[in-house]
Structures are given as structure tokens and as C-alpha cells.
């Protein structure tokens, strides 16, 4: 294993237990935000495990109260775009390798799962949420957009939950994650240790065997009262978020808000109005295009988008968002353009084109033997 120990070894802890490999994201002070070193290390490990016939399954978890709070975007925002691009390139390749990994990945989502944390878990076969889970793709509030393959995995959720999660950045608890399919199982956190042991003991890479073991430890949680995922609310959610444009979605939500005082509608509206107009417009298009293509193409598309975002030629909202939310923390970003109307279709379009720069290249994905993503069968 020595060859695998690059730098920064302690940011990802590796345990070998019979045929299982247990990886622990270990940067608890930063809520396990993914650093460049962690991404490189995870990628390296996943690729190595695939070649290693003694490895049968991979458990991924986080140290402390967070599974993973996302990519370290504050670092990206402060660095130059060259380094930023390299970070996202590696991260998306890691997402792709996870999505097309032939060995089952089991993620224990016992805490915060945001942004890049979603990307590190949702592409895997099993995702276990708990009463401590807190999931969100909050990028639209940051001047970014849900990336890390979210245009693939969010668009595969039933109906238009994907649009809802993507555009509003809504925070979901473990029960809601199970309700929409982001998690495949729900277990109480106190059971996780014995669940882990049972999986190690089972010594199997057979998804149905692993699934039945997890099921033994899982239970059916109750959905909190205000959740948008209650059956009686889904109609409204789907009606609003299936609309053609962001403006139409907001209009539909406002019409609903007039008729019923449901809290989720008001807060969805509030988040969308607070978010970067650039972000929600490109996010909607990303998820709509993502729904029609495979995971590889989704990541290639997101890479184009993220490069435009961090180059800041069309809009500098990403830097403004990071300043207002992560650095100065005044929570009062000044978006430019400031309104949806000002952010034209042509501007949206330009985020999906190649970057016009000599040395820039589209994301190149590694050739994989297993190309059917696991996520499709579960989500």
C-alpha cells in the first residue's frame, strides 16, 4: 500500500477489514470539505481497488458531525482559475470513477452532506442516511451551480424533485433523503457500527446480499410535517418545477403561494429570489440537459460550466457569493446581473460552450470497463 500513500495521507483514513475497505474523510474542523489532496487520494484509492481482486466493497464515511460539506470552494475562489480548473477536473473524474465503479460503494451519510459531498456519495450503489443527515446542494446561493454530477443524479429523482433541490438549495433530513431516493436506506446512527461490522463479515460484493444486510439495520422514518415530499404536496411541486423556464417556475410558485400558505412554497420562493440569477438559470438548463444524457456527458458539460464560472468573464457571481457567504460572511451578495430578466438566454448558452482559450480542453474521462452507472437503478 506504500505506493498509494501520496502526501496528505491523514485527510483520508484507510482501514482494511477482510475484503472491505473503509475510507474515512478526516478533516473534521472543516466539516470534511474536500481538499485537492483528498480528491487525489480518493481517486487513487478507488482506481486501485478496482484492480485489486481482494477488495469486494468500499465503505465511505466522515469523521465527526459531517460526512462531507463539499468541495473546498473557498480555496478555489481565492486561488487562480488554473488551479481551480485542475481541482474540478480531478473531482469530476473521481465522480465518474465512482459512478462507473464495478465494486459496491456504501456511503454512511451520518451528518452534513453538501455539494461535493453529494458527488462523493450519490454516484455509489448504497447511500445510508440517518437521523443526523443534512443534505443540500446549496450552490445557487454561492454563485455556482450543482455540479459533481448533480445534473445526472438529481435529474434522475422522481418527477421534478431534482429541479426543486437544485434551484432552491433546500436542506433535507435523512427521512426526506429516503423519500426522494437520494438515500437508498435509512438507519439510526447508533446502528451504524454494527451495520459496518455485518458488511465486513458478509465478505461479499453481491449488491443483493449487501442490500439485504443493510435492510436488517434500517427502519422507516417518518417524514417531517412540513416536508415538500409528502404525497399531497408532490402534485404542486411537480406542477411548478416542471415549468419551462425559471421565470415560469417562480410565477407558478407565486400563484400557489397565493392560494395556500404552505411553508415550503414560501421558503422555496425566498431561496430562489435570494440566489444568483446566473446560477439558477444555468442550473435549470444543466439539469434539463443532464436528464437526457449519461453521467459522463453530464460531467463534461458541468466542467465546461464550472470553467466559465471561475473564469468570471460572463458573471463574477461566484466570487461575490464566496465573499458574502464564506469569507466576509455578511450574507448579502450583490449579484450581477441582478435580475433574471437581465441574464439573457444567450448568456446562459455561453456557459455550455467550450471555453475559448488555446490551452483549454474538455474534460477527458478515463475508459471504463463498467459503464452502467449504479445510480440509475436506485434513484
Amino acid at each position, binding site marked *: 500500500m506504500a505506493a498509494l500513500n501520496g502526501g496528505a495521507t491523514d485527510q483520508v483514513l484507510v482501514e482494511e477489514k477482510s475484503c472491505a475497505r473503509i475510507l474515512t474523510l478526516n478533516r473534521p474542523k472543516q466539516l470534511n470539505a474536500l481538499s485537492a489532496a483528498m480528491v487525489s487520494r480518493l481517486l487513487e484509492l478507488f482506481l486501485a481497488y478496482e484492480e485489486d481482486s481482494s477488495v469486494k466493497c468500499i465503505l465511505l464515511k466522515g469523521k465527526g458531525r459531517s460526512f462531507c460539506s463539499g468541495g473546498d470552494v473557498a480555496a478555489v475562489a481565492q486561488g487562480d482559475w488554473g488551479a481551480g480548473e485542475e481541482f474540478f477536473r480531478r473531482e469530476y473524474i473521481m465522480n465518474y470513477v465512482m459512478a462507473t465503479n464495478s465494486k459496491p460503494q456504501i456511503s454512511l451519510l451520518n451528518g452534513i452532506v453538501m455539494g461535493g459531498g453529494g458527488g462523493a456519495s450519490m454516484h455509489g450503489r448504497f447511500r445510508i442516511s440517518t437521523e443526523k443527515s443534512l443534505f443540500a446542494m446549496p450552490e445557487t446561493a454561492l454563485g455556482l451551480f450543482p455540479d459533481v454530477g448533480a445534473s445526472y443524479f438529481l435529474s434522475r429523482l422522481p418527477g*421534478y424533485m431534482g429541479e426543486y433541490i437544485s434551484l432552491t438549495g433546500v436542506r433535507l433530513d435523512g427521512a426526506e433523503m429516503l423519500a426522494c431516493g437520494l438515500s437508498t436506506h435509512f438507519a439510526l446512527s447508533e446502528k451504524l457500527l454494527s451495520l459496518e461490522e455485518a458488511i465486513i463479515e458478509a465478505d461479499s460484493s453481491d449488491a443483493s446480499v449487501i442490500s439485504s444486510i443493510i435492510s436488517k439495520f434500517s427502519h422507516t422514518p417518518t417524514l417531517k410535517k412540513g416536508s415538500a415530499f409528502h404525497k399531497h404536496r408532490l402534485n404542486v411541486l411537480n406542477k411548478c418545477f*416542471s415549468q419551462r423556464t425559471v421565470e*415560469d417556475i417562480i410565477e407558478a410558485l407565486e400563484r400557489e403561494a397565493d392560494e395556500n400558505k404552505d411553508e415550503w412554497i414560501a421558503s422555496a420562493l425566498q431561496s430562489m429570489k435570494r440566489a444568483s440569477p446566473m446560477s439558477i438559470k444555468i442550473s435549470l438548463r444543466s439539469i434539463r440537459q443532464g*436528464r437526457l444524457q449519461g453521467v459522463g456527458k453530464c460531467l463534461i458539460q458541468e466542467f465546461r460550466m464550472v470553467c466559465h464560472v471561475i473564469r468570471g468573464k460572463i458573471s463574477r457571481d461566484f466570487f461575490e457569493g464566496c465573499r458574502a457567504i464564506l469569507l466576509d460572511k455578511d450574507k448579502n451578495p450583490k449579484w450581477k446581473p441582478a435580475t433574471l430578466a437581465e441574464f439573457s438566454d444567450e448568456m446562459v448558452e455561453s456557459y455550455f460552450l467550450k471555453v475559448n482559450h488555446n490551452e483549454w480542453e474538455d474534460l477527458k474521462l478515463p475508459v471504463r470497463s463498467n459503464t452502467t452507472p449504479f445510480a440509475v437503478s436506485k434513484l
Partner: protein
Amino acid sequence: MYFYRKDMEKSGFRTQVLARHFQGYSCDKSRTTLISSSPCLSYVPPEFSEKPFSFDVELMRKLMDGHNVEDRNWLFNLMVQSNLFNRKLRGGKVFVVPDYNQSMEQQREITMKRIGFLLDHGVFKGWLTGQGVESELRKLALLEVAAIFDHSLAIKLGVHFFLWGGAVQFFGTKRHHDKWLSATENYVVKGCFSMTELGHGSNVRGIETVTTYDSSTGEFVINTPCESAQKYWIGGAALHATHTIVFSQLIINGKNEGVHAFIAQIRDADGNICPNIRIADCGHKIGLNGVDNGRIWFDNIRIPRDNLLNSVADVSPNGEYLSSIKDPDQRFGAFMAPLTSGRVTIAAAAVYSAKVGLAIAIRYSLTRRAFSITPNSNEVLLLDYPSHQHRLLPLLAKTYAMSFAANYLKMLYVKRTPDLSKTLHVVSSAFKAILTWHNMRTLQECREACGGQGLKTENRIGQLKGEFDVQSTFEGDNNVLMQQVSKALLAEYVAANKKNKPFRELGLDHMNKPRPVIPWQLTSATLRNSQFQNDIFFLRERDLLERFAAEVSKYQLQGYNKEMASVVNYQLAEDLGRAFADRSIFQTFVEAEMSSGDASFKSILSLLRTTYVMSTLDEDAAFLRYGYLTPENAASVRQEIPKLCSEMRPHALALVTAFGIPDAFLSPIAFDWIAANSWS
């Protein structure tokens, strides 16, 4: 490489058989490894096995779709996410394809439900109440997407919005617009379009339904006087339509004023058939069973005077016939306008159907292998056989050409002015015929190229043949349309000669220039030169038009009337119609090439254009028959095609990817067909 060494092929095959036989038996290990082939085939996605794309497929899709790409994606999304569109998981991928195993009754029911779903989601917003080019283009784009999913769905929408709705728009006046358009857009009324009769199809002027006016009550009386006058093939009539446009002879004071259009109610809001209306079902068809085609008889039904669609002609309350268009021919022409929109949408849908077929067949041919060529080598990919390339790649190039042609036609349609109505009529007739014939031919070739897999309904191609076959005869029989094209060209020719004026319309201005000269020797470089390509199409059209005119006038001098003279010269007329269409399509290709602006498209588009032209020259005997190409020239053309195919081969995947048909709308054999067919 030459692949027809039979002995090589046999020895390769034999080695495979032996290898399988020896597996597990041979003790000679080195020998086993030498001749063993992998015990199981594995699927490798063409995205991995093929070279990276040499051009931006997203931008190419934009060029080919031409407009409203985001709106198209939105509708694809709506269909993928709904349970009404028959989502199925096969080999780890989601597909949405109608279940054609359903009975006719079930298909009709689900089609209507799907329309209800699309209505609820605002898909039809502005289809009739919207104004301007933008809203027309959006409507066309969404209809094309509906057709990619299911032809029945598109036709059912086409009848309601384009035929019924279009008739109200074009033949009606404000009172009709106010009363019907918004109600139609919201499906408060469901419309159909009663033109065709059992005894009269393409010849609308011969229909036998009769309408008279009763000034004592201020009503029209519509009657089906005989069995051959029953309305036939009326889409929507068998089950769902509440109202219909009725085409009928209008008799005023004993004088036949010709064909006019009326609105009649045929069902009440609860779906009960109205008094004095009889409706029967046209029954099961070879395709399009989601559309409820019916037959209608009118037993002296009475409708208010207001229900005459009176933009062209009116009848006063006291029964006087009024029309601003005095010439009955022109008056009739004005009534044919909605059929133009039908031809436009049919032509566009035909291209998308061909795209679906080709995307499936070509993706399959990039993953399916058959026979080894040399001993101990892998079996060869279908698309690496020159013969397979020759079957599919020229059709691919033609589909690009026709995609540009359809876009040109759509733009002509949405920007139509009275000045352009002749051009629109002629171009839409020609393109509708050529594009729909191309679709049927492409589907047949694709179905054969997929072997047995092409037979499976779930793989779409075979089924599409039945679903789209109707395109070659509805909204004008293709052969009749092509004759009309030739007649229109002849009229231009006669007019120009009589007045001794230059040709201006229908793209015939090339006739004003000197006759093009084709070089004796056609080198590869000449063949690929767009000037040569221009010349050869110009020469053919010009010469055929002159011949046709000469023959017709010869017969007229012998005492034939004009009509009869062109009828007997049908062979020249057909060749001429095709010459016009091919030349026009070629020109739309050149225009698209020039407008694209993207440097990475330059070489691929010119390769496609040349392949389109060479394949047209090779397949149409007219070039040899009339001597536009010498036999030596024709041989050079034919020799060029395998070269062009091998140049297209590395781009095949990119070219079908750029069609922009989402994976879910293709079929399992386009992807991991081993996983899709695995046990469990």
C-alpha cells in the same frame, strides 16, 4: 483493405469454431492461448472505442435543429419524467417508447391521455393564440419532439391544431377566431378536418358533399348525397372530436360556387354523436393506431350561417354569394393553405424519424461484430465493412442534407407572404415527397442493417416503418405532388418564354445563364468541388424542363389538351420533379454550410455534401439516361463513394450523436445490448 476474400473469411470463421471446441480440452497451453478467443463477447460503448469527436456535436445539433433547442429539451424532459410515456428500464438505461403491443383501443386512449398531460403542462400555450415567427417556430419544434416519441401523438396534435385550428385561423374571420381559437388551444373543443372522401382524396375539387343555403332560416344545409361522398380517414372523428371543418361544394341559387369550408358540431360535450350525423370507425391500420380515424355522413344537417369560414367568400343573409376572389381557381388555391402547414410538419417529422433509425443502426454497427477476416483476429465491426458503410453512410449524409432542407422549408413557411405562396406550395410539395420517401428507404435499410434485432418492436426501427408509411400519401400523394411541381415549373417556363423575360422564381434563375458544361474527365477533386455539383444539378433541371416543355407542346400540337399532354409525359415530369427537389436541397445545404460559421464544421460538412451529391448522382439513372454524365463519369462517381464512406466512417458516431435524439428515445440495441438481453 479488401474484404471479399472468401477463403480468408472461411478460415477465420473456422478458427473461431476450433477455438471454442478446444477450450478446456487442449493440454498444449501455448497453443490454447494462441487460438482461444474470449469466451464471451463484451460490450464496449462506441464512445470508448471510437476516436474523440472532431467537431462540437452540441453546436452541430443546434445547426441541424435550427431553432428552439431548449424548448425541445424541455418537452423531452416532460416525457421522460412522466409515467404516461411508458418508461422502461432495459440494461440499466431508461427508455420511453410507446407500447405498440397495445390494442388499437388502448393506443387511442393513451394517446389522448398523453395529450391531456401535455396540455396540463402548458406545452400548447400559444399554439393558436400566439403571434409571430417565434411562437410558430416553437410550436413546430415541440411538434417535432412529439413525433420523435410517437407519430400517432404528433398526428393527433397536427389534426387538432394545424388542420382544424389552422382552417379556423386561415379561412375564418374575427368572429371565428374569437369563438374557437382559445377554446381549441385548451381542448374545450376537439377539432377534426373533413376533407377526404371515399371517392376523392388528392382531387379535392371533385368532392361530392353538397351544401345549400336556406335563407328562410339563415342556415346552411350539409348533405352526403351518396356513399362515395362519405368523409374518410378523418383523424379524431372515430372517438374524440366534437367539431369538424367540412369541405363541401357550395350551391347557391343552383350554381356551384366550388369547394368551401364550414364548421359543424359532430358530438356534444359528453361525447354523444349529434343528430343527423353518422360516424363509423376506419378500423385497424398498419401503423398510427393511436389515431382514431373515422368516417362521417351528414344527413342534411343544419348549421348557422356564421359557420361558413368566410375569409375567402361569404353568403349574405338573403342568400347572395359574395367573394373578393373572382377566379374560382385562385379561390380554391386559397383554401389549400392549411395543407401547406401539414406538408411542412410532415417533411420535418420524416427527417427526425430517419435520424432515430440511423442513430440506432449506426450505434449498433459500431458495437456489433460479425466474422473474422484473418485467422486469430477479432471479428470485424459491422461498420468497418465497406459494404455496410455504403448502405448506411450515404443515407446519413442525405439525412443531413434533408435536415437543412426541412429547416429552409420551415423558415419559408413561418415567414410566408402572399408573394411567396407559389414558392411555398412548390417547395413544400417537392420536399414533402422527397423527405418522406427518404425516410421510408432509410428505415428499411436500417432495419436490415440491424439484422434480427431490427425486427423487435422495442428496437423501434421496424415499427417506425409502419408508423410513418402513411406520410407518402397523406396531405397529397407524393407522386401527385411531384407532378404538380413539374407543372408549376412548366408554367414558369412557358410564361418566361412567352413574355421573353428572365426566370426569377422557384430558383430557376440559373436558366438565364449559359448552359453549364461538365468536364469530360471527372477527377476526385472535381467531383468534390461545389461548383461542379451545382452545375450538374442545374444542367439536369434545365435540360429536363426544356425536354418536358418540348414534349408537352409537341403533344398539344397533335391536338392533346394541356392536361393530357403532361399526363402522357409522366416520366419526364417525374424526373423533372426530382431534379428540382435535389437541386433545391443541395442549395439549402450550401447555405447552411455558409451560415454555420464554425471552422470545425467546414471539412465535415463539405464531406457530407459531397457524399449527398455523389450518392444522388449514382442512384438516379436520369444522369446517364439523358447524358449529363458519360458512362465513364458515372463510373468515377461510383468509385468515389467508397472513398467518401471511409472518410465519413471515423465521424459516424459524432454525426449521429449530433442528431440530438436523447438516449431514452433510441432503443436498447443502441446501447449495451448484452446487458439489455441478459437473464434476470
